[in-house]
């Protein structure tokens, strides 16, 4: 089955071509949605078959099939397919969420008219290149698709390009992630310099690790992680993601919550065989993850835009995964355990389902009442039963309430971080940040839910439940959010499954039985600490936002007020970037512009002026022109002769 895996990205790409090129009348229903759904469905089926093969122990990591594109001397650029457990995990996420989002779009984008064609073309292209990214078998191919998902993200954020805020958000996302991309590229150039190949198969071998000096390995891995900082919106490059909410909500769900932003996490997980040779980089990864998790969670506390709450919560959860991967690397090196790695990737999958669900629910609400502002909502639960119920499931999952999926994976991540604390006490601090984040997550998610669905309406609106085409994907995702945590206990267990993808790095780790895993979770006092905090968070949100007449003005007075304003202004980070961009970069670009305008343009215009005017001048002299051409040829010959006969021999 695995040899057909290269077809997975092909189906959505064909759909993209059909939607983009077919005449309008053959696009049928919803301007091409049929092709988009068909393309993603085919990929979904094929992905599932591939995943089934992987579950049966097949992988494709040696002698990967390749399509050689160009070869120059000793360098070649090849496109290959690499399938292991990590790839399978990403295939599950991208294919399921991708298909559901495309189906949901059939209802959500109904009023877009002409723009729908562009939308379906771009979203199928995105799904195609995202598949291309996860099945890449070398860093260069991965980088190419990495850039392409960035391009699709740019196009889709700017979908309503006539809106200035959308256009500038698109630009911002593109430019900020570009900073990370350049680091990523620099990282792989370093690797190429020392190893002479970018194939995973070669790079991940022991001999390659020896070929790279230790300090260069640290630099290269840190730079590659830089790519993840950009793409997965980690501090300090996280500010583009909330702005990216300017795109349609479906795009936020698919690209900016479930798939593309996971590419950074995937990159770190993929690079484990390199990272374990650079513990310094792992620590850096963990610290960035921990800081991002808590920082983003605080901003989410005060956000009033429903999509912004979800955006900051996405950043915070991505921070969790990155933190888990950093700690997991320590566990691989020092404890010979895949715990952290498995926990972070587990959280990646669970988060994809419940966050896509939350976004699509938010989309359903926005679709119904036409605003993003939670202060204008309230009481929607009665009118939108399915949406409110499914969103409640999503909120419980992300808050870490058992038996919903988030509980299992979040708990595993925190346990891994605590465990890593045995080897570097910084991890205890990071664990503390993680647990505080868990509390805040429960609080702001339920703040959002109560403000939206509970209480009385705070403005005039005519809400209605969304059509079936939107609610069915919600229900499927809600089902997944409830159950995806249990894969921890199915078959070999999730841990055992993921463990096999980094087997080479572990030296015969003992296989934990599923009973042990369950026992570990429920006997660990830390589990109850985080659970209690989550419940307290929910109760607190209920107290503040659901008690009639609760005086919330105390939050806007004195120190609290300052804090609240700081949070509302996203800790002024965004403002700092804007000021920096305006004062420093703009200043520099003004200088560059002057140079460009007077020196380069002067040259270009001068030449063009000369050329254009000579042409016009000559054309006016009807008789003269051919003679002029001929005499120019003669002048040319004379100059060439002088050059060849006198100047060059004299010089050489």
């Amino acid at each position, binding site marked *: 089955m695995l040899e057909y895996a290269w077809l997975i990205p092909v189906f959505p790409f064909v759909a993209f071509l059909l939607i983009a*090129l077919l005449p309008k009348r053959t696009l049928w229903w919803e301007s091409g949605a049929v092709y988009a759904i068909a393309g993603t469905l085919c990929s979904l089926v094929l992905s599932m078959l591939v995943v089934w093969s992987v579950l049966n122990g097949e992988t494709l990591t040696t002698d990967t099939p390749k399509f050689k594109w160009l070869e120059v001397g000793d360098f070649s650029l090849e496109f290959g397919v690499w399938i292991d457990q990590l790839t399978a995990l990403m295939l599950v996420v991208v294919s399921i969420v991708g298909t559901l989002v495309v189906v949901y779009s059939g209802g959500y984008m109904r009023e877009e008219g002409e723009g729908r064609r562009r939308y379906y073309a771009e979203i199928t292209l995105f799904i195609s290149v995202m598949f291309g990214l996860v099945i890449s078998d070398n860093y260069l191919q991965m980088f190419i698709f990495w850039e392409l998902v960035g391009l699709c993200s740019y196009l889709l954020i700017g979908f309503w390009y006539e809106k200035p805020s959308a256009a500038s958000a698109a630009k911002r996302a593109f430019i900020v992630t570009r900073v990370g991309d350049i680091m990523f590229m620099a990282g792989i150039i370093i690797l190429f310099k020392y190893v002479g190949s970018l194939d995973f198969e070669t790079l991940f071998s022991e001999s390659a690790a020896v070929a790279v000096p230790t300090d260069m390995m640290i630099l290269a891995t840190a730079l590659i992680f830089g790519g993840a900082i950009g793409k997965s919106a980690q501090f300090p490059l996280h500010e583009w993601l909330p702005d990216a909410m300017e795109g349609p909500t479906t795009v936020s769900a698919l690209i900016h919550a479930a798939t593309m932003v996971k590419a950074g996490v995937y990159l770190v997980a993929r690079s484990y065989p390199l990272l374990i040779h650079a513990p310094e980089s792992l620590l850096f990864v963990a610290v960035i993850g921990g800081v991002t998790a808590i920082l983003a969670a605080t901003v989410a506390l005060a956000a009033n835009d429903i999509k912004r709450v979800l955006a900051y919560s996405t950043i915070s959860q991505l921070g969790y995964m990155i933190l888990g991967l950093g700690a997991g690397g320590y566990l691989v090196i020092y404890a010979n355990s895949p715990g952290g790695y498995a926990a972070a990737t587990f959280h990646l999958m669970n988060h994809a389902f419940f966050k896509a669900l939350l976004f699509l629910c938010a989309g359903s609400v926005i679709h119904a009442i036409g605003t993003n502002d939670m202060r204008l909502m309230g009481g929607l639960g009665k009118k939108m039963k399915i949406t409110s119920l499914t969103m409640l499931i999503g909120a419980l999952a992300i808050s870490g309430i058992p038996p919903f999926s988030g509980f299992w994976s979040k708990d595993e991540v925190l346990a891994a971080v605590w465990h890593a604390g045995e080897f570097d006490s910084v991890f205890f601090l990071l664990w503390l940040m993680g647990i505080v984040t868990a509390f805040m997550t429960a609080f702001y998610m339920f703040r959002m839910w109560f403000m939206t669905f509970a209480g009385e309406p705070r403005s005039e609106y005519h809400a209605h439940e969304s059509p079936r085409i939107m609610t069915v994907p919600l229900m499927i995702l809600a089902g997944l959010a409830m159950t995806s945590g249990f894969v921890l206990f199915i078959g070999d267990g999730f841990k055992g499954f993921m463990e096999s993808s980094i087997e080479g790095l572990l030296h015969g780790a003992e296989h934990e039985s599923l009973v042990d895993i369950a026992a570990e979770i429920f006997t660990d006092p830390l589990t109850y600490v985080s659970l209690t905090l989550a419940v307290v968070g929910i109760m607190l949100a209920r107290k503040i936002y659901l008690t009639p007449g609760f005086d919330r003005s105390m939050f806007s007075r004195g120190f609290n007020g300052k804090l609240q304003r700081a949070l509302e202004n996203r800790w002024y980070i965004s403002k700092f970037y804007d000021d920096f961009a305006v004062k420093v970069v703009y200043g520099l670009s003004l200088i560059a512009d002057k140079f460009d305008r007077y020196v380069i343009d002067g*040259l270009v215009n001068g030449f063009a002026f000369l050329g*254009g005017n000579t042409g016009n001048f000559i054309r006016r002299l009807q008789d003269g022109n051919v003679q002029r051409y001929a005499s120019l040829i003669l002048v*040319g*010959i004379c100059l060439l002769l002088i050059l060849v006969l006198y100047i060059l021999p004299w010089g050489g």
Partner: protein
Amino acid sequence: MEILNTLEPFLPQLLLILFATLMPGLDYLFKDKRIVAFASLIPLIAIMGAVVTWLFTDSWTPPGSSIALVEINLFSGLFMLVFLAVGIIVVLTSMDFVRTDKNQGEYYALILLAIAGMTLVASAADLFVIFVGLEIAGISSFALSGFRKHEKRSAEAATKYFIIGGFSSALTLFAISLFYGIAGTTNISAMGAAMDASFTSFEGSESFALLATVLVLAGFGFKVALVPFHMWAPDVYEGAPTPISGLLAAASKKMGFAAFFKVFLIGLIVTKSDWDIAIAILAIITMTVGNLIAVSQTNIKRMLAYSSVAQAGYILIALPVGTQYAVAGALFHILTHAFMKSGAFMVVAGMASCAIGEKLDDFKGLGKRSPFLAISMTLFLFSLAGIPPLAGFASKFVLFSSAVYGSSDPGPSWLIWLAVAAVLNSALSLYYYARVIKYMYMEKGSEAKVKVPRSTTAAIAISLAMTIVLGVYFDAVMDLCLRAAEAFSNLPIGF
């Protein structure tokens, strides 16, 4: 029977000329001129079929030549492929473009004759065969440029083209006579061998050789439109019927390069160190001037003409680098340029068939009016600018990297500047290519739909398919080009 054996290598030309003589008769007999056009496709497709079987399968190879005038090898095969493919594309587009014109029989006959001349140059092994081929193709193209003789700018273009063409032929002929005087032969490989000996035998012959080199450079430089021998090109491309502009840019120019490679890299290889810097300078001037002037053009045909001038500058890189790899790169670029440039001209021709002009402003809103034309044009222009994964990127990549590889030992290190200049020029060219795309998609223009004739659509579709296929199957195409470049067995491999 002896005569038949002698004629065998000329079969393609004979077939083309035979059909060319039939065309006026067919024109007289049939009222539906499409029959004439289809008849002219017969020899093109037939020879194309033979060449393709030869190049891509092992089932058939052409007969060897019993005389020293021509040599048919993979190098000439690849050039023939280009000429025939461009011929087919041009005929398909013309079917609609000249549908209301008189004398269509002659029009198609001249196209066939021009291609006969070009294929002759492709297989030539003798200076005089090159000259005859150049003249057959040249005289046919003069007439074709002035095909609409009542149209002022068409007639003007033909006159200019003819006068400058005659001048350049004289220069070429003068150079050939000098070469004969020095080497005592007009056979190109014999000339290469005799050159060295004659320098030692009589004094001053080296200077004569250089004089002849410069003259032949000017003569061929006219064909490929090198600066400063390019002045005719924009006027003629603008004035000629658009399919013919495509023929000139995509095929006639490539014929000049076939001649260039044979004469310079086989016949004049011993004096390479005398002319390589001069040609390198000429290459840089040509690409830079071509691109800079293209920036200010508002007529698309003129813009494409100047872009062709610049592309000639890129291809010329292969001469001073002088490795098999560089020749393969040049062949690759000739192949890809033939499709992307003729494709772009055919888009302009397709618009003209629908009574739309050829000014930049006429492209406003084309994305809405004809998505097919707009997306094709976009891809052609992106390919010309060298955006991956399109064909233009692949061939430029090989061509430019050949200069980088050539600059390391044993080649001279200044070759690297050719690559630098070429890359900077490519960046500059993106400006005027992207501007057309901006006009097509961002600017609002007329709303009326454009209906493109079916034959033109076919021609554009062929070019488009090739522009993508040649880029995607980079490796296979490059393999073929490298094998073709083995014709220059005297050159180093180059990487």
